[in-house]
């Protein structure tokens, strides 16, 4: 995590450094730097003139904010209703037994991305992989660059 955050300036300005822009600023911060490390959160608190606890407390409320650096790849198993009915639980169970982190793949879940016709689906590095079976998914993940 760098010590200064000049790229955040445009979004701070857009919200006039007002407290109501906090979530927008956090979203952009995470987009720019990959995660919300403490130096970044402290910078945002200073710029918006908010207590650090308020910034930390708000950020930790929302599922999508993360406070540790992401791994090289991410694999999110959709656990929405349609995916659940179509076997997302089995996919998760198989993946949980694999040493994915060693290969730089972070396993997570997401509650419905809204393209349920492809259920069960996973989101790998932002791309949706439809109609997955555990065999196809493991094969696909093996093809990712380590």
């Amino acid at each position: 995590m760098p010590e200064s955050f000049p790229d955040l300036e445009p979004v701070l300005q857009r919200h006039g450094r007002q407290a109501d822009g906090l979530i927008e600023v956090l979203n952009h911060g995470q987009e720019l730097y990959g995660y919300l490390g403490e130096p970044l959160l402290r910078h945002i608190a200073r710029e918006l003139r908010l207590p650090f606890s308020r910034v930390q407390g708000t950020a930790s409320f929302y599922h999508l904010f993360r406070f540790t650096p992401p791994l090289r790849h991410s694999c999110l198993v959709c656990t929405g209703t349609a995916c659940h009915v179509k076997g997302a639980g089995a996919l998760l169970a198989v993946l949980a037994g694999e040493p994915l982190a060693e290969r730089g793949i972070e396993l997570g879940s997401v509650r419905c991305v809204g393209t349920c016709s492809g259920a069960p689906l996973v989101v790998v590095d932002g791309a949706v992989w439809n109609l997955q079976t555990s065999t196809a998914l493991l094969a696909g993940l093996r093809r990712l660059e380590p």
Partner: protein
Amino acid sequence: MSLCLRVCTAASCRSRGGEDLRQALAAVAGSSTVVKGVGCLGPCSEGPLLELETASGVGHPERQLFGNLPASDPAALAALARSLRACAENPKAPAPWQPPAGQALDLNHPFFRLQRRLVLKHCGRIDPESITEALAAGIYQQLQRVLEANDPAAVIELVRRSGLRGRGGAGYPTGLKWATVAKMPGHEKVVVCNADEGDPGAFMDRTVLEGDPHTLLEGMAIAAHAVGASRGFIYVRAEYPLAIARLRQAIHQAEQQGWLGTAIAGSRFNFEIALRVGAGAYVCGEETALIQSIEGKRGMPRPRPPYPAEQGVFGLPTLINNVETFANVPALLRLGVEAYGGGTKVFSLTGDVLRTGVIEVPMGTNLRTIVETMGGGAPQGRTIKAVQTGGPSGGCVPAQQLDTPVTYESLQALGTIMGSGGMVVMDDTTNMVDIARFFMAFSREESCGKCVPCRAGTVQLDNLLCRILERRANPADLEQLESLCVMVMDTSLCGLGQSAPKPVLSTLRHFRGDYLAMLSPEATP
């Protein structure tokens, strides 16, 4: 022969290669051929989809729809492009074009024929990234008419007379809500669009946002004029990156062309819209939590009253409606109360059903018509056991009740709700206790933790359901499950907790056998 090729580039077809298909077909574009990316064409399970409109100069243009087209194979895409070019260069009206790969879909199938598209009128027709096409299709004309007439009370009266109710799930009368906000004192008011479509298995709002964002903006502007608001917010969930991009672009275009901003269409009406992106909290779909989130705080609900109509965003009188509700307004104004009739409801049909996708049907259509006639029923060799509506706040309709018409009241009578429109079909292999536990785990995870009944109750309910699933429960546990459900429902602060027990109570009511079969008489409490 002139051709118009419409390639679906909404999220579902995009995940099946719709964007690759559009780029490959862009090479076919020429003097007589138009290629464009459009919003959802409907049957997502057959994606990527292509609509071909051919006009030979005589008669109406012919529409054909094709599915399961190649998307990643360059050779197959090239063959497809060649075949289409040959079709375009053929001066005579040829026999219907057949793709070298993929299949033609029958547009007379009930899936298409039984729809009434008011909200989705332009979705799948126009390029959602082009305001020129939106204007050519008549979007913003109703706003212009409203501004010329400058009679907000008449608009509210029209909405009230139409009987339009909130399409987000609760079904509050829209006209009444507008009238309440309009009557509030003060010059500063706010209009908020709830696009935090959090119910798993629901993607109607995503379809509108990705396929026709300008109709939403028009609906919001009409509402703002009616209630006297000059500021608007759209709160959209972060899980919809394409919808966010399309909205940003549409807002920018509307500002450039004078349909948002100051002195809209030469009138004295000012209205600006800001986009707020969520960060993954289901509870933010609850209106008071959503307001907190717009203000940059933790999305925690607060007791009502005061209702948002009195004290909403920044303490100002606020009108909150769902995407589909706003998108209904231009259609209602265009048609008038008589022709609008009972209106429509958009559903996303998914789960154990042959054809999945997005449909818009007249209000009151039978569930059986939707699931069996339009969706084709359960896959081969299976039968439908239940249809889940309303997500974690709803319940399951058993197969024997499928002849129920889809209305707010009839679904409520069955122990579920209309909800926002997610419809998940479950076949006979589904264990309903597992479904109940799935939703309870969801509510437990998403409970904001502010009030005790929801924070602690969902945990206890989840534990009890797990006990049953692990065959460790006895009849007394089942009794406790039921009484705890009622307690959480009666005493929770907001809609999340009040409706979290619904999936349990509804499955207990209709599928008690599934529960009893999993009880262990020997288990000790």
